[in-house]
């Protein structure tokens, strides 16, 4: 099988979706094995695709790609084609999506056991993964938009999986509508780019943009519209509000959304279209600023959250921000590398927290946890590794990707951006340590919860261990040696790049600072929360009550939006409805009917039915008309 058949990766899970959705309820075990098998098949096929791709990848010329498309419809000159495009970016995304999805699928077999609508969960999971795989191999923006929306609707279904709960339904709605507002921008952007180039084909549009065939302002405006969609999907400020709420879905879904599907879609699309951002003056700066703002904001908010999944959610928002910072620095390698390492680490963290939730019989408030390491050794250990990895300690994966990030930020924007990015990393280290200590270390805060806690079965710990290994080693893809051994010499920096391939070389000063920042964060976190004691942190919170309240309430951004929706949008709707009812209908339509009826009720008195009256009227009429005629003639 060659890379031309990469569409099979999406087609297999998509097919299984239909099987499970229609017949899943009649299958033993809800057909979960079909789901695992489908994504397992995609996972295996990925290696064939990657091997085939690397076998003819031209490491001298670079930028090799495969593209296959067929005609879809034709209206005069408006010809639509659908097809796939496989290049280095696609391969990296395939690796992330298939690996994480497979782990999540296996984990779900244990986690979702006994849930109602078990088959439906697996069905939608397949469609979710299939849409995401389709998204990363689409060769044109129309197909990107199609799969983009499918990803959105699947996330809606999965976040709202426990639809009996009002909060889950609301979270699903919020996720869909928030991202949909961004998608308005995306669709406008896509059509604007089409208008100027006459095509939806990504490579042709990039080519036109690079060749300067599109006016600067026009290009900037249209790519910013596209970026709105990316911001919505990737939960960037001010669209970030949906992601923390999205944890209402089953925990494996959170792992999938945060790591491999959904939120990375925006990062992917920005990376894919990065040459256009580059060609439009100022676009990269906007990307950087949005990323930095989001990263700092989210890292701050995460400090004051007590729900494990909510803390993790804000850490995702922050790391996504950093991915955009990397892209804003013009380095798709750093962005995708960060995406990949983060995906493994964050999937591990979410699945780990799922393991905690199941192991403690549905408890996810840190205030009731603590001291779980001994009770749940595998979960505890893997979670520990993931915490340190997310904090950015070497030699774990995210140290290397963040090092890449710092290097490119320093190179592109200089000190100010570097400092801000490091600040976000620093904050992450602190609150991740807080999360770990309060969940796994120290004295249990709730004896009863602790008593009944137990390690989860192999079907759940297995994926944890596998992802833990990746969280340790996936950072090494940056090195030439590792890359050569795997078939892409030069490491990821020479595999994915914007203009020139860059071989990774450690900048010892930068690496030293980055290490110092991470260590400092970990130590401060450990100092403040040591032994799961709240004494120091409470003192801190009391010292700055207003700041603490603001963080705790997520800077009141959700409340602000709610106010605008209630008073603004719904208010307008009430006005329009009122206008429609009373002005257009009751006055315009019914009013004219009433006028007709009323004039009829008056005029009917002329119809007396008495001949003399009519004779009189005729006579008067004749006389009147004669007089009038004479007058006119005179």
């Amino acid at each position, binding site marked *: 099988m060659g890379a031309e058949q990469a569409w099979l990766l999406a087609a297999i899970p998509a097919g299984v979706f239909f099987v499970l959705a229609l017949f899943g309820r009649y299958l033993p075990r809800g057909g979960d094995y079909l789901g695992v098998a489908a994504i397992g098949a995609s996972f295996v096929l990925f290696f064939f695709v990657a091997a085939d791709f690397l076998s003819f990848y031209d490491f001298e010329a670079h930028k090799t790609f495969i593209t296959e498309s067929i005609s879809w*419809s034709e*209206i005069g000159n408006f010809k639509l084609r659908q097809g796939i495009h496989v290049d280095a970016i696609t391969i990296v995304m395939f690796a992330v999506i298939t690996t994480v999805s497979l782990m999540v699928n296996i984990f779900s077999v244990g986690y979702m056991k006994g849930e109602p609508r078990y088959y439906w969960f697996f069905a939608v999971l397949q469609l979710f993964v299939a849409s995401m795989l389709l998204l990363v191999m689409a060769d044109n923006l129309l197909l990107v*938009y*199609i799969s983009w929306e499918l990803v959105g609707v699947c996330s809606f279904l999965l976040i709202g999986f426990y639809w009996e709960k009002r909060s889950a339904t609301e979270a699903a709605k919020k996720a869909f509508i928030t991202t949909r507002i961004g998608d*308005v921008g995306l669709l406008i952007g896509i059509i604007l780019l089409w208008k100027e180039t006459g095509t939806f084909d990504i490579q042709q549009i990039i080519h036109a943009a690079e060749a300067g065939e599109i006016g600067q302002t026009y290009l900037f405006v249209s790519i910013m519209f596209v970026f709105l969609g990316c911001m919505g999907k990737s939960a960037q400020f001010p669209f970030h509000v949906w992601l923390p709420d999205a944890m209402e879905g089953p925990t494996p879904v959170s792992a999938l959304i945060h790591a491999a599907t959904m939120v990375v879609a925006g990062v992917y699309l920005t990376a894919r279209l990065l040459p256009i951002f580059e060609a439009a003056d100022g676009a990269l700066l906007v990307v950087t600023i949005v990323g930095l703002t989001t990263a700092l904001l989210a890292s701050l908010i995460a400090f004051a959250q007590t729900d494990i999944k909510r803390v993790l959610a804000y850490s995702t928002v922050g790391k996504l921000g950093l991915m955009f910072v990397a892209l804003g620095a013009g380095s798709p390698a750093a962005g995708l590398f960060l995406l990949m390492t983060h995906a493994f680490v964050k999937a591990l963290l979410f699945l780990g927290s799922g393991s905690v939730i199941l192991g403690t019989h549905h408890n996810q408030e840190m205030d009731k946890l603590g001291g779980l390491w001994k009770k749940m050794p595998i979960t505890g250990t893997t979670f520990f590794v993931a915490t340190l990895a997310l904090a950015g300690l070497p030699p774990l994966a995210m140290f290397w990707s963040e090092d890449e990030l710092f290097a490119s930020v320093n190179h592109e924007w200089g000190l100010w951006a570097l400092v801000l990015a490091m600040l976000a990393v620093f904050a992450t280290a602190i609150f991740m340590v807080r999360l770990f200590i309060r969940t796994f270390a120290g004295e249990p805060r709730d004896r009863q919860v602790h008593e009944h806690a137990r390690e989860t079965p192999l079907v759940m710990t297995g994926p944890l261990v596998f992802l833990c290994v990746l969280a340790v080693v996936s950072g090494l893809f940056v090195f030439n040696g590792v890359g050569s051994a795997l078939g892409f010499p030069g490491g990821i920096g020479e595999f994915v790049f914007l203009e020139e391939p860059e071989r990774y070389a450690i900048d010892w000063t930068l690496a030293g600072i980055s290490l110092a920042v991470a260590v400092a964060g970990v130590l401060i976190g450990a100092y403040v929360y040591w032994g799961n004691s709240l004494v120091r942190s409470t003192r801190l919170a009391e010292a700055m009550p207003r700041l603490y309240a603001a963080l705790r309430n997520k800077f009141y951004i959700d409340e602000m939006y709610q106010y605008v929706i209630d008073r603004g949008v*719904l208010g307008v*709707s009430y006005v329009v*409805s009122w206008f*429609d009812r009373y002005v257009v209908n009751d006055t315009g339509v019914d009013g004219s009917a009433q006028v007709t009826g009323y004039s009829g009720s008056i005029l009917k008195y002329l119809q007396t039915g008495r001949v003399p009256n009519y004779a009189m009227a005729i006579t008067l009429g004749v006389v009147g008309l004669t007089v009038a005629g004479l007058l006119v003639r005179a």
Partner: protein
Amino acid sequence: MTFDEGQGYAVLATLAAPLLAALILVFIPGTQKMAVRYVAAFFGAVMLGLSIYVFVAYQVDGEQIQMSLKWVWVENTAFLGKDGIVLNLAVDGISAPMALLTGVVAFAGTITSWKINYRNKDFFILYFILLAGVYGTFFSFDLFFWFFFYELAVMPLYLLIGVWGSTRKEYGAMKLTLMLVGGSVLIWIGIFAVFNEANLGTFDMQRLFAAGNDGTLSPTFQKVFFPMFVVGCGVLAALWPFHTWSPDGHMSAPTAVSMVHAGVLMKLGAFGIIRLGIQMLPVGAEFWMPGLMVLGVTGAVYGATAALTQRDFKLISGYSSVSHMGYVLMGLATMNQIGITGAVLQMFSHGVMTALVFLMIGALYDQAHTRDMKDFGGIAKVMPMWVVFYAIAGLANVGLPGLSGFTAEFHIFVGTFQTYPVFGALAIFAAALAATYMLRMFSMVFFGPFNPRWKDLKDLTPLEAMAGALLIASIVVMGVWWAPFTDRIGTTVAALPGVVG
């Protein structure tokens, strides 16, 4: 009578099937309710089969107008020439998908009406007469018959709503009929004016189209009479601000009538704008289209905004119809090939998805006897299939890719951006509003804590499920593989006067 390679019979048969059904029903005693149902279902199936045949048999690479059949009706009288009034039936690339739409919705509506018990014979007679009118309008290339069938389609509505309806049915029926008849008056005047001005002694629309193109119908004349046709037909297409019959009419109408009405009848209005407006008065069209664009955008945004805070299912659908028909008018007003093709796609798409929505609303209302969304909650527990079907219709409404709504809206947006980028952006924004009102309804009705008051609700009956499945199949086919539609529509649209590529 002249036929075109025999296929003219297919068109005649499609038109004759509902008339024959009505005729046969007249002779079945009203007490034989089951017999009435079987006859109706049989003819519904026949109509569906014939409609599919007409759609498939339309040759994409052939002539624009195919399967024609001419049957001279009145000739050589005082004011009419050699071929004065002719039953002139044919199909072009626009009426082919419209015929398919009619067949699909008619069949779904027929089997949905299975459960009607009160005077079901009379119901079906009127229902089939209405459908004959619809087919006739889509197939007629004679102005006289066009109007004849147009009125035949509109008139039965009054009785269908007034007798079998609910919720202020007399008001709804009266308002709807009066407004539509008001529109018809404008069309009727316009038709006589055109006949007079062209002075060809014929109602043959193809000759009148030619007259509109070659200047026989003077530019001034066209500019004066174009608005009459647009407003006259536009009433039926829920043209803002002549749309208020739509929410109230739908609220009152029985399920199958809502389905056929929103599904097919509203399309007659848009179809009329194409036939009488764009094709017959191209100069007028070119002059007035920016105005229609403004009204279309207004309808699209206005309908979506008003739908945001409604509490009655049918009002949501009524306003969302205003919004979606606004898209149709926008597509027509672009006067380019992509936009008008998109408009016709949207006519089909809106037809099938709205029929599905009304089918679902009916399935719930017949049991619950309320349509106030606030009364519901967690209905997915008792009616899972109903929820899935409704959700698919709702998502098509929202413009989710893979379903018909996206295909249509995408073409309209692209077409609109070619000439009016700002209006295009507004229309895309209205689609986001659609997501908001739809999901609001989903979360209020389908999801959330289950309200035990509804524990006895039954899921869809097999017949309803069958009707729904047929509509969903149409939605999905158009959403995924739209080439069969765009091939037919696109070439015909390209040949419309004044349309740019």
